[in-house]
């Protein structure tokens, strides 16, 4: 067992443990922090695979931006006081069964695809930012542009859905279903 495999196994165990802890924890803030740890571990695994750009991007975007916003909202909404118990029974059991099925699929895939000795490999292609940039702007230019549109749509949606209501004139009751346009003209 080379040191790379040992480090990988340790990292993998940490990642899985963090993911399980995230699901099990009763405090939403702790769950979010476990998720951050999980993302950071995945970032290190990317680094081990020889993709430093993706590793740093993972940490900057996932652990550094997305999870901060998660934490922001959880803290503002008081997520540490979640109601215990679920309204629908048996969800955890069904979840575990589906999880096991998906795990079985992955295992089948691994067995079929390449055999178990290729657990840790390194990339032989060029993963420098320059090479990534060339790929992204030549072969994958259409998905790149479409992704930028997706982000634009998300920003527009965020702005629309949090728009502040104009000042209501006194005497006009809140109209419920009168006119399909729900706001003051």
């Amino acid at each position: 067992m080379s040191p790379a495999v040992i480090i990988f196994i340790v990292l993998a165990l940490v990642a899985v443990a963090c993911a399980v802890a995230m699901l099990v924890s009763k405090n939403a803030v702790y769950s979010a922090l476990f998720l951050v740890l999980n993302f950071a571990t995945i970032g290190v695994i990317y680094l081990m695979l020889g993709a430093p750009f993706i590793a740093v991007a993972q940490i900057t975007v996932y652990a550094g931006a997305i999870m901060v916003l998660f934490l922001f909202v959880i803290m503002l909404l008081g997520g540490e006081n979640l109601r215990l118990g679920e309204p629908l029974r048996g969800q955890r059991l069904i979840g575990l069964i589906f999880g096991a099925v998906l795990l079985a699929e992955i295992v089948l895939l691994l067995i079929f695809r390449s055999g178990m000795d290729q657990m840790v490999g390194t990339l032989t292609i060029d993963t420098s930012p320059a090479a990534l940039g060339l790929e992204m702007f030549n072969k994958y230019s259409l998905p790149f542009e479409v992704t930028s549109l997706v982000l634009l749509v998300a920003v527009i949606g965020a702005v629309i859905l949090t728009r502040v209501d104009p000042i209501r004139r006194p005497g006009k009751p809140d109209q419920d279903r009168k006119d399909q346009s729900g706001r003051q003209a």
Partner: protein
Amino acid sequence: MLVEWIIKSVVIVLFMTAGFAYVTLYERRLLARMQTRIGPNRAGPFGLLQPVADGIKLIFKEELVPHNADKLIFTLAPVITVIPALIITAVIPWGDTLTIGGTKITLYLTDVNIGILYLMAVTSISVYGITLAGWSSNNKYALLGGLRATAQMISYELALGLSFVGPILIAGSMSLLDIVKAQSSIPFILLQPAGFIIFFLASLAEVNRAPFDMPEAEQELTAGYHVEYSGMKFALFFMAEYIKLIAVAMIGSTLFLGGYQGPFVDQFPILGPVYLFAKVIIWLGVFIWLRATLPRIRYDRLMAFGWKIMFPIALLNVLVTAVVLVLVGG
């Protein structure tokens, strides 16, 4: 190889912590002169032992943990704040290669080809400590201060990241060593004036420093996210802020002022760190000058400034730089 890395890492950490101590003194003296008073000069000659005295005082203070605060996170938050501040300067080159008695020692810890991205990543995760500190204190003002600080930091991260793109484009590489080497003829501050100003202002906002220090305003928010902290934990926050200050000064000097470049640095590589040191001191002086002179910016204006002015200008800067480079023939 491993030994070299360990020694360099220890040197960096020691430099940052010692630097923090003396930057606090520098600030208090400079601020005092600008306010026509003298500043601390009793503890040791010229007040040079003042930081030591402060340190001893803070170690002996009683450490209070608020009732119902989340103990684990309350204790971890200062640690989470300090660590990114210490590791961010791992990629800054202090100089080129030094030859001592036949062995070549490189005066930088490591030269990754994604150095700038590393800076972005560490800046992104440095937000957590403050958020968690504000939340775990079980105190409305702390929470508010913490969330405000977080919002401010993530908003200005955008402009900060975009201001990095200018030097990357001109140098053609994300590695900080290459960027410094590309400044051997002209420092980038002359080629990227807009980028420099954006970086300067954004980095001020990132370290929550006046005039962008609303989150820790003593008068408005009763000291914001570290209101419930005392003793060594408070010292760690204090330390983190000043270490971040030194770190952004070092980054700024590397990206825009030429880093370790200066006259005769090719013949005497040992001059590299000296030049870097001098540039950092000047940069810090300007920061302290700003603190002494400008009033605090109100929070909503701060956010409007970051999103509506800095971000578009940063984008425009990237566009113009790229177009000019293509036209001039990079």
